[in-house]
């Protein structure tokens, strides 16, 4: 392992080293990708890889990124690192002179690198095909009925106008501690009113329930009463078109139970 320390701090022609590398390492699919990048970006002959040089660069490259990585992914880089060191060690070992044909320790790595690079080409072919396919649209690409464009009237406003308006916002009034009388109308009252009307007419326009009083509380109570009775299936609520009168229609014998409760 002491060989590692001697080749420490290699010049980093590919911008490796430094804190920024943590992000860099993410770009690589794996150790083969990184190794291939180191080799190709430095125009190194893949059949004659300077193992010591590349090993040092590889180790420097992964040094900062490893801590950030999930264990499994880190293991893949470390395994490659170990492989490189093993190859280096094999190259350094003195060899007996006469071995008829000896395999270069790097051969297996070279084979893997070339194979990996080969499939990178296939990846490019697939990417091109994917992009090309993406330019053909089938049925359903454009939404059948696009939502109506929301009418967005852009507010024309100068800063002065805005400030002016802001300056005239009244101060919030101090809270007044008075007990307001409880609502002058209850849903119950409206329900019984509605029951009576329905009992007589079978068909009542909703606004008849609150028109005579004309306050918001009455309108709300009337609406709630109508909904409540619809829920009880005493009336049906119908409206022929938007903004037209809302009609309450008696269902079955619903109207006959009028005045049964809460007579106002």
């Amino acid at each position, binding site marked *: 392992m002491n060989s590692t320390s001697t080749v420490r701090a290699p010049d980093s022609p590919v911008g490796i080293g430094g804190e920024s590398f943590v992000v860099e390492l993410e770009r690589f*699919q*794996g*150790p*083969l*990708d990184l190794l291939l990048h180191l080799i190709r970006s430095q125009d190194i002959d893949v*059949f*004659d890889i300077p193992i010591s040089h590349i090993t040092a660069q590889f180790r420097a490259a992964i040094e900062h990124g490893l801590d950030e990585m999930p264990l*499994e*992914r880190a293991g*893949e880089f470390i395994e*490659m690192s170990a492989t490189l060191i093993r190859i280096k060690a094999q190259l350094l070992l003195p060899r007996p002179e006469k071995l008829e*044909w*000896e*395999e*270069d320790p*790097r*051969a*297996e790595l*070279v*084979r*893997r690198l*070339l*194979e*990996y*690079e*080969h*499939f*990178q*080409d*296939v*990846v490019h*072919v*697939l*990417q*091109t*095909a*994917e992009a*090309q*396919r*993406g*330019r*053909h*649209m*089938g*049925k*359903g*690409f*454009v*939404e059948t009925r*696009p939502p109506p464009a929301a009418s967005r009237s852009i507010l024309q406003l100068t800063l002065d106008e805005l400030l002016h308006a802001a300056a005239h916002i009244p101060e919030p009034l101090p809270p007044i501690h008075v007990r307001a009388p409880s609502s002058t109308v209850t849903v119950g009252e409206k329900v019984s009113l509605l029951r009576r009307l329905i009992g007589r007419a079978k068909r009542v326009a909703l606004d008849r329930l609150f028109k005579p009083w004309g306050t918001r509380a009455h309108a709300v109570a009337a609406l709630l009463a109508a909904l409540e009775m619809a829920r009880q299936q005493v009336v049906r609520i119908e409206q022929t078109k938007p903004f037209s009168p809302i009609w309450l229609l008696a269902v079955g014998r619903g109207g006959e139970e009028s005045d049964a409760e809460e007579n106002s």
Partner: protein
Amino acid sequence: MKPEQIVEATLFASQTPLTPAELARADEGLSDADVEQAIQVLRERYEANEAAFQVYQLGDGYQILTRPEFAPYLERFDSVPRPPHLSPAALESLAIIAYRQPIGRIEIEDVRGVSASSVLRTLLDWELITVVGRGDGLGRPLLYGTTDRFLEHFGLKGISDLPSAEELPVELGAAKEQPEAEAAPELDQAPEVDAEPPVVALPASDTLT
């Protein structure tokens, strides 16, 4: 009704590719051959009329798709989500599977040098690959192959639309012929290297034009 009209109506109404057999179901009088012929008629007609769409072959099926030059206009309607582009990891695994199928997970990982299990699960979910069998090895590993969805996704008629291994810039073959014996990589050790390079019927560029 003329056969090409029936085929046209069926293709027009379909959101997915239809095989000749599927198209022939539209009418008892239609044979697969009639369908093929009808498609040819339609193609020529659309070509002559400068139609904005054409009948394209995807895998075994046919589908009416817009011509690529209209993509910029259609892309303004982004209301419908488009199929996601595959990640580099997914593409790597797919590339290996496409060329080496049937292939097991271990062999894929050997080539990539990284784990492939999660990527394989994604590809299976997207139906881009499928289990095509089991290997003889320990535990009878699952073997994977590409699907029709794969061909559709990449706009291929068949796996043979992909360039053969020899046509790619970095060939495995180049390493074989390397003269220096010492550094010559042992290609034969590779699991099924050059496993039957697919016969190239048509260059990929002809697939969708």
